[in-house]
């Protein structure tokens, strides 16, 4: 079967997943249809309600990229301090890394050759 991918230990069939997904969508649609019928688009019903407070403008409401995952970056601050250090933007540094990695690889291959 062209749909079934054998991974050596298990199998993967995207069709099963798609069928399950469709069934779930049908169930969701069924519940949605049982919801309130009185909803009217483009009326006050569709406006944002913040407990009576004034709703900020769109650009002030939008959570910008710099505010997302703040806790993640704060927790990993030390890691990021270290990992950002080689990203200098200077091409000379980039080539130095190349020289260093090549030298280490040559040494490892030569030592491994001696051991062999």
């Amino acid at each position, binding site marked *: 079967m062209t749909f079934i991918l054998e*991974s050596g230990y298990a199998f993967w069939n*995207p069709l099963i997943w798609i069928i399950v997904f469709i069934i779930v969508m049908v169930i969701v649609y069924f519940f949605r249809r049982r919801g309130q019928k009185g909803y009217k688009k483009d009326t006050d019903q569709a406006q944002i309600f913040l407990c009576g407070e004034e709703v900020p403008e769109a650009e002030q409401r*939008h959570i910008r990229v710099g505010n997302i*995952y703040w806790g993640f970056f704060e927790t990993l601050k030390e890691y*990021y301090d270290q990992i950002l250090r080689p990203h200098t933007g200077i091409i000379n540094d980039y080539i130095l890394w190349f020289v260093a990695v090549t030298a280490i*690889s040559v040494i490892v291959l030569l030592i491994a050759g001696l051991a062999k």
Partner: protein
Amino acid sequence: MAALITHSPILIIAIPLAAAFLTIPIGMASRKARNALVIGSLTFVVFLVFALARDISINGIHLYTLGATSPDLTIPTGFMVPVRIILEVDGMSIFMGIIWSIVSLAAATYSLSHISSETGQTRFYTLLLLMVTGGFGMMFTGDLFNFFVFIEIASISGAALISFRTRFADTQEGGFKYIVVSAIASLMILFAIGLLYAQYNLLNIGALAQAIQYTTLDKIALALLLIALAMKTGMVPLHLWFPDSYSVAPASITGMLVITSHACMYAAFRICFTLYGGVINAPVVGWIIIIFGLLTMFVGVTMAVFQKDVMRFMSYHAVSQLGYMWVGVGVGLAVLGNTELLSTYGRDAMSGGIFHILNHAMYKPLLFFTGGALFHYTGTRDLTKMGGLAHKMKWTTILYIIGTLSISGIPPLNGFSSKILIYESVYQFHPILTITGIIVSILTLASFTKAFHSAFMGAELPEYKEVKEVPKSMIIGMVILAAGIVFVTLFPSLVVDWAIHPAADALIDQGAYINAVTGAIP
């Protein structure tokens, strides 16, 4: 038709090359005719590549000797070794060729609108077609020196394309960094080729593979080749130039540059498995590749989460995804000498890594194209300035979601198919490889969700009231790649049986590659 297939390896290289130079006079006469020439020539190349792939699946390795009375006459009369330029296309080469042909066509289609307001468009298409020529050459050549020539063609045209939008200072810096890195890498490759030629008086990969002794000079040449190519693919810690250059190129070119990185990765695999396959200290080199692959996955994704520039964000993800391929194929290399382990999980790990090349070649250019679509109308790559774009750019949003789900390995998208092959096989080699892979996948999804929310979600921002969906040709370029994703999603087994396993077997079966050229069993 038979003659066309016989000559297809050279035609696939020559047609874009001829079209590259024809775009100049035709472009001076008519813009539409130039565009038709670019798209027509690349469409014909796609046809030729698939015809050649079919031929290879039936008849095995396809040889093409330039200048010989017959294309399969690899060793001239009176000679003991091949001396002519030989194109040798096996399962792995044609697999790369299929990817390159489709992405090139999608990128050229996307470019029709994407660079329509730029000056010097004819030069853009000339360079694009030259890059296509270089890429095919790298994939099809059976000769080390020709590989060097083709990588130079691809690199020089790539650097010029990165710098194409000369009104931006960062494009000039990105192009400069790319050409410096490429020149250093090419120089080291040439030096390594010189070391091998000095010892064996050979340049043909098959003939060299038969003669190679794994001397000290061979080991130095191996390290030079491997690390130079690894730098071109953006392997950590040699990835530092990658986001600087890839993020500033026109999005269509960034999509193609990703595939040139794949081509360099292919070359590294070809060198490890085919050129050195019989003599290499496989566990040591395999472990080197695996360690650098793990670093590439993890550092790439953690740097990506941190980014606020949409194209740098995607560039770091490209780095991260390349790590999966290194790890998958690295495991295959590490157990190359052990037939039992190779058949138990090594071949599956390699297949997973190679399958991931195919999947990455579709979703990553697609994501770069969506990034280019955002830049096309907002005029910024800064995610902090974006928001609410899904209201106006519905097609781009849907295509971004497809790419995001695919790169994050969310079932049932194609990224999941290759990742599960990698996870299940490399787990047997060492569980830490699978654990790292899963963590990287989670971080990938988290970072793409962050970028999606920043750019597409939220209320419509007043500064983007006038934004509209990108032109049709850009949508078509993205849809070509999304269609590929859907196809591989639905028929993973068909793709694996028809393209992935033959590619993995082509790398493992060093004897077949050598035998095709030399006519002797090594």
